[in-house]
C-alpha cells in the first residue's frame, strides 16, 4: 500500500492539472496552435518509449525515427487508399504501376493499418533485438547498428518509389473513416485521441517502471553482468523493452501522420532519430515526465524560434542545447532535485545514474 504523503499528493495534483489543461486546450487555443500541440504530444509519446530503453535500461537507440516512421507509413497507406478509393494511388501511376501491389491491399482497412502500425515496428525491433542482445552486442555497437537500420530503411523507402512514394513520401489525404481530415472538428477529435493515447501510454510506462520488471531493467542499466549472475536473462528483458518502445513509437507515428498530413523519408532519417534522443536528454532521461516535457518544449521552441527568426533560429536551438547541457546535466526534470540539493547541501551526495550507453 502506498501512503499518501504530502509529496505524493502534490504529484497527483500536478498530474490532474496537466490532464485538465490538455483536455481543455481546444477551448483556449486556435485551431492552428491546437494542431501544433497535437503534433508535439505525438512526439512526447515517442519520447516516453525512448526513455524506457535509454533512461531506464541504458540502451541508446538512434533508430527510433524508423519505428516512428513505419507506424506513420502504415497509417499513411490507409489514408492514401481511402483518398484514391481503393485504386492505385497517384504516384504509382507515375512509376508505371497499374495494379495495386498485393501488400498494399489489406491497408484499405483502417484497423488493419492500425494493427500493422504497431506490429511492424515491434517486429522489426524484436528481430534487431534478438540478433544483438542475445549476442551481447551493447553500448555504442548497438547504437551504431540502429543507425545502420535507419540508413537501410530510408534507402529502401526512397529506392522503391513505385511502392513507397520515394523521396516525396505519402501525402494528399482526404478522409479518415469517412470524416474529412482537414476539418476543424476532425482535428479536434484527433487531438483528444492523442491526449488519451499519451495519458494511457504514460500510465502504462509508469506501471512498467514501478513493477519488478522495471527494477530489473534498472538493474540491467547499472550492471548487466551482475543481473546475469543473479539468474535473470538480460537479453530477454532487453528484447521485450526494446519491442515495447518500438511499438510506442509506431503509435506516435500513426498519430503524427493524422495531424500533419504527410510522411516522407526525411522525417524518419538520421537527423529526426537523433533529435528524438535529444528531447529525452534535454527533458531529463530517467523520468517519464521529463522525457515528455522535453519533447514538447523542444518542439515548441523550434516552432517559435523558426517563425520569429527564420534566419537564425538554429543558433537559438544550439544555444538552448548548450545551456541545458552545462547547467542542467539531468535535464529540465532534474532541475527540481538540483534545487533541493542546493537547499540541503550537507546531505551526502549519492552517486548519479551511471549510464553504460554513453
Amino acid at each position, binding site marked *: 500500500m502506498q501512503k499518501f504523503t504530502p509529496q505524493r499528493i502534490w504529484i497527483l495534483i500536478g498530474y490532474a492539472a496537466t490532464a485538465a489543461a490538455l483536455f481543455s486546450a481546444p477551448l483556449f487555443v486556435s485551431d492552428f496552435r491546437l494542431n501544433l500541440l497535437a503534433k508535439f504530444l505525438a512526439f512526447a509519446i515517442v519520447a516516453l518509449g525512448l526513455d524506457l530503453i535509454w533512461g531506464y535500461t541504458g540502451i541508446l537507440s538512434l533508430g527510433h525515427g524508423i519505428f516512428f516512421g513505419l507506424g506513420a507509413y502504415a497509417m499513411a497507406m490507409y489514408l492514401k487508399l481511402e483518398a484514391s478509393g481503393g485504386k492505385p494511388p497517384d504516384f504509382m501511376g507515375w512509376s508505371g504501376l497499374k495494379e495495386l501491389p498485393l501488400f498494399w491491399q489489406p491497408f484499405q482497412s483502417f484497423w488493419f493499418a492500425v494493427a500493422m502500425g504497431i506490429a511492424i515496428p515491434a517486429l522489426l525491433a524484436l528481430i534487431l533485438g534478438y540478433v544483438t542482445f542475445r549476442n551481447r552486442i551493447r553500448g555504442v555497437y548497438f547504437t551504431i547498428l540502429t543507425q545502420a537500420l535507419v540508413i537501410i530503411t530510408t534507402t529502401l523507402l526512397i529506392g522503391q518509389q513505385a511502392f513507397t512514394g520515394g523521396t516525396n513520401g505519402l501525402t494528399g489525404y482526404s478522409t479518415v473513416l469517412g470524416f474529412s481530415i482537414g476539418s476543424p472538428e476532425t482535428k479536434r477529435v484527433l487531438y483528444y485521441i492523442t491526449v488519451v493515447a499519451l495519458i494511457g501510454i504514460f500510465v502504462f510506462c509508469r506501471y512498467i517502471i514501478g513493477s519488478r520488471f522495471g527494477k530489473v531493467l*534498472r538493474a540491467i542499466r547499472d550492471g548487466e*553482468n551482475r543481473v*546475469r549472475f543473479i539468474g535473470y536473462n538480460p537479453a530477454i528483458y532487453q528484447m521485450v523493452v526494446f519491442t515495447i518502445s518500438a511499438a510506442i513509437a509506431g503509435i506516435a507515428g500513426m498519430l503524427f501522420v493524422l495531424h500533419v498530413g504527410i510522411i516522407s523519408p526525411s522525417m524518419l532519417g538520421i537527423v529526426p532519430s537523433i533529435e528524438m534522443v535529444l528531447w529525452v536528454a534535454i527533458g531529463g532521461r530517467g523520468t517519464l515526465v521529463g522525457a515528455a516535457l522535453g519533447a514538447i518544449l523542444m518542439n515548441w521552441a523550434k516552432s517559435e524560434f523558426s517563425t520569429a527568426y527564420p534566419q537564425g533560429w538554429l543558433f537559438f536551438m544550439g544555444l538552448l542545447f548548450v545551456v541545458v547541457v552545462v547547467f542542467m546535466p539531468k535535464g529540465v526534470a532534474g532541475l527540481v532535485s538540483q534545487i533541493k540539493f542546493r537547499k540541503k547541501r550537507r546531505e551526502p551526495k*549519492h552517486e548519479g545514474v551511471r549510464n553504460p550507453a554513453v
Partner: protein
Amino acid sequence: MKESAILLCDDVTVEFDGFKAVQGMNLKLEKGELRFLIGPNGAGKTTMLDVICGKVRPSMGRVTFHGKVDITKKKEHQIAELGIGRKFQAPSIFPSMTVIENLEIAMRQKRSVFATLFAKMAEEERSRIDGQLAMIGLQQKAEWRAGGLSHGEKQWLEIGMMLLQEPEILLLDEPVAGMTDKETDKTGELLHQIARKRSVVVVEHDMEFVRNFASKVTVMHEGRLLKEGSMDEVQRDDRVAEVYLGKRRDADVSRSTA
C-alpha cells in the same frame, strides 16, 4: 562417497590465447562444506570460480553439479538458477537502486519477464527481505541508494543479495579485501552463519582470516592442485612453503590484484 559431492570439478583446463590459467584441476565439494581456495597470484583461483559460475568455459574437463548436471554447457543465468551464486571481488551491487530494491530483485523468485511484470510484494517476501536486512545490519539504510553505501556495507549488501538468492553453493572471491579490521570481523561472523546452511567456496589471501575457520584448505599453484588439507597441514607442507609462503611478501604487496 561420490554421491555426497555437490560439486565435482574433473580435470578442468582453461586456456586464454594459449596460456593455460588452469591445468587439469580437480575439486570436490561436499554438501555443507566451507572450503578455502588459496594460492599465490596467478594460481588460477579466480578462474576456477569463473568456471564454476559459467563466466569462463573450460577447454577441457567437466564440472558436475549434484553428480548429474554438467554445468560447463549452461549459460550464466541458468547456472545461477540451478543454485550457484557468485560474489565478485569488487562489490557489484546496483548503485542507482535502493538497498531494498537490490534485495528485492535478487530474492529467489520466478525470473521470467512475465512473472516480474505482474509480481506483487508478498507478505512472506517482505519479511524475508527484512530478516536479511537485519542479518547484514542495514535496516537503517534500507531506503538508501546502494551507491551511497561504504565499501564494507556494499560487500555485505551483496552477500545479503546472494543469500536471498538461496543458492546451494556460494562462491566468494576475497570477501574481506579492502575492509577494515572491524569490518573483516563482522564479515567473518557473517560467513560463519552462512556456512552452516550452505556449501561455500572462498578465495582468500588473508591468512589470518582463513585461520579463523577450522575448515579444509585447497592450495593452487600455476593452475594445478598443490595440496589439500587443514590449515595446519597445509602450512607444514614443504612445497606449499616453497611456492606460496615463500613468496608471501610478493603476494602481500599485490594482494588486491589477484
